[in-house]
C-alpha cells in the first residue's frame, strides 16, 4: 500500500499534466482532513483521465459520486470603514465605523467524486466539479467514460439534483419515475402534500376529542 501525496502535489501534477486545467484545493475543516480538488468544468474529464492513468496515482476506482446542493448564500461581513464624521464639537474628524456588507454568493450544484486506487491501494482523492448555477438543468461533464462506475451514480445525481452530465451514455431518471418533474434532493425542494396514506392526524385521539 503506497501513500498518497498531499493534495497540493496532486494539484500541481494535474496542472502540469493537463494544459489549461484549473484546479483549486478545497480545504476540509473536519478531523478527517480529506481535502478535495475542485476541477474546472472544461478540463474535468481530461484531469480525471490524467488521475486514472497517472503511473503513481493510478486512481482506477471511482467509489462514490455525490451530488451536493449549495444554495444561494448571503454572507455578511463586518468591515471597519473610516468615515469622516462631525464630532460633537462641530469639527470634522475621522472615526472608524463598523458597517455590514452583504455579499450574495450564487448557489451551485456540485458533483463530488471519491477516487481510490485498487492497484496501489490508496485513496481517497476527492474531486469536485461545480455547475455554473442552480438552474433546473445545470451542466457538468460526465466522467462515466472515464470510470464506468459513475454510470448509475451520475444518473442518480441527475435524477435527484438535476445535474446534467454531458456525455453520459444513458442519462435517464433512475430512482424516481420518468414522469417526475422535480429534483427531490435539492435543499429547496418542497414535497407535494398528497400523501394518500397519511395516518390519523396527531392529537386527534378520542381522548382529546372527548
Amino acid at each position: 500500500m503506497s501513500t498518497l501525496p498531499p493534495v497540493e502535489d496532486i494539484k500541481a501534477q494535474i496542472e502540469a499534466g493537463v494544459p489549461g486545467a484549473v484546479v483549486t484545493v478545497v480545504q476540509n475543516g473536519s478531523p478527517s482532513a480529506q481535502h478535495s480538488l475542485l476541477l474546472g468544468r472544461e478540463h474535468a474529464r481530461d484531469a480525471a483521465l490524467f488521475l486514472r492513468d497517472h503511473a503513481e496515482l493510478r486512481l482506477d476506482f471511482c467509489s462514490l459520486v455525490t451530488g451536493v446542493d449549495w444554495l444561494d448564500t448571503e454572507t455578511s461581513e463586518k468591515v471597519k470603514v473610516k468615515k469622516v464624521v462631525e464630532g460633537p464639537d462641530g469639527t470634522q474628524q475621522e472615526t472608524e465605523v463598523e458597517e455590514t456588507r452583504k455579499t450574495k454568493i450564487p448557489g451551485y450544484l456540485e458533483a463530488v467524486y471519491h477516487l481510490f486506487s485498487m492497484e496501489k491501494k490508496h485513496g481517497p482523492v476527492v474531486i469536485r466539479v461545480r455547475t455554473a448555477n442552480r438552474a433546473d438543468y445545470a451542466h457538468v461533464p460526465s466522467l462515466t467514460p472515464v470510470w464506468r462506475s459513475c454510470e448509475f451514480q451520475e444518473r442518480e445525481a441527475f435524477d435527484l439534483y438535476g445535474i446534467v452530465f454531458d456525455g453520459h451514455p444513458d442519462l435517464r431518471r433512475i430512482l424516481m419515475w420518468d414522469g417526475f418533474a422535480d429534483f427531490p434532493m435539492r435543499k429547496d425542494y418542497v414535497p407535494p402534500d398528497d400523501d394518500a396514506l397519511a395516518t390519523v392526524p396527531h392529537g386527534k385521539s378520542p381522548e382529546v376529542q372527548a
Partner: protein
Amino acid sequence: MSNDLLEVDPIAGQGEIMEVSMGPHHPSTHGVFRMDVRLEGEKVVRLKPVFGYLHRNHEKIAEHGAYLAAIPYTDRLDYLCSMTNNWGYCLAVEKLAGITVPERAEYIRVIVAELTRFQNHAGLVGFLLQDMGASGTPLMYAFREREKVLDLFESLSGARMMCNYMRFGGLRVDATAAWLDEVRRLLPALPRFLDEFENLLRANEILMARTQGTGRLSRELAVSAGVTGPMLRASGVNYDVRKVDKYGIYDRFDFRVPLGDHGDVYDRYMMRILEMRETVKILEQALRGIPEGPIMDPKVRLRGLRPKAGEAYGRIESPKGELGFFLISDGTTNPYRYRVRPPSMINLTILEDMCLGQNIADVVVTLGSVDIVLGEVDR
C-alpha cells in the same frame, strides 16, 4: 461470453425479438426489481435494469434528522446486514467528528460484523441455489444457520434484523459474558454447516454446468465499474477494504482473502463459501482477544452532536461490497449532506454486460450472484 453449448446458431440476427419485462413481480428478482429484457429465442440481446420501486429518499430523511436519528434508518438500507450498515455510518461520523472508539467496542463491532457477513453469505448462497431451481433445500439449510445468528443479534441488541446497535463512539449496550459464550458455542456449528453445504453442492455437476462460464466479468471491467466485495474478488482483484483501510481493528486479525480467476457465477459462489470460512477464523480470534473495558467514548454527545464544518467519507467492507457514507457537516446538528455508497446498486452497473448473449435462465442466476438487496439499491 460465448455459449459453448450452442456453438452453431444459424438464426442469429434473424430471429424475432421478444421483449419481456422481468419483474417487478418476479420470484427471482430479490425484491421489486425489474429488468427490461429483449430476447432472441431465449438469448438475451439487451437488458436494462429498472429500479426505484422501494425508493424512499433515505438520504433526504437523514439530512432532515440529527446525526443520531440516521442510525436506525441505516438498518433499513441493506436490511439483511444492519450491523455493518450501522458500522459504516458510525465510522463516517467518527471520522467527521474525530471520535475514538474504545477497544472493547471495536472487538464487539468486529464480532457482530463478521456474524453479519456469515449470515448474509449463507443466505445469498441459498438464494442463488434457489434461483437455480433447487427447491429450497440449500436455502433452508442456510436459513437454519442464519436463524442462530439472528437469535444472537436479538439477545444482544433486542432486534433480529433492525439491530440499531452501534453508536458513533461505541455501542449502545455491552455484550454480556453470557452472550460471548453463546457465540463461542455457536462457532463450531458454522464450519459443520459449510461442510454440509459443500457436500450437497460443491461437486454437483448441474451446479457446475449452470454456473461455470456464466455471467463472466473481466478484471478490467470490474475495476472500472467500481464493483466491490466478493464479486470483485471473484474477478481476481485483491481488494478488501478490511485489508486496505484496516478500519476498526482489522489489522489485528489473521485472515486471508480468497480470489477467483474466472469471474463467473461459480467463482462468486465459491468466494462466499470461502469467505465464510475466513469469517469463522476472525470470529475465533476476536473472541479470544476481547478485552474488558468501556464500550462508549464518554465524551461523545449522542444527542445534539455538532461536528465542525467539513466533510468525511467513511467506508467499510460490508458483505455486499464497499459500503461508504459521505457526510458534509455545516456545523449544525443535522448533516448537510448525507450520502450512501450502496454497493448493491453499483454492482448492478455491469449487469447488462454480464448477461448479454446468455440464456434467460442465466440472467436469473447472474443477478442472484450479484447479491443485491433492494432496500439498498433504491434507498
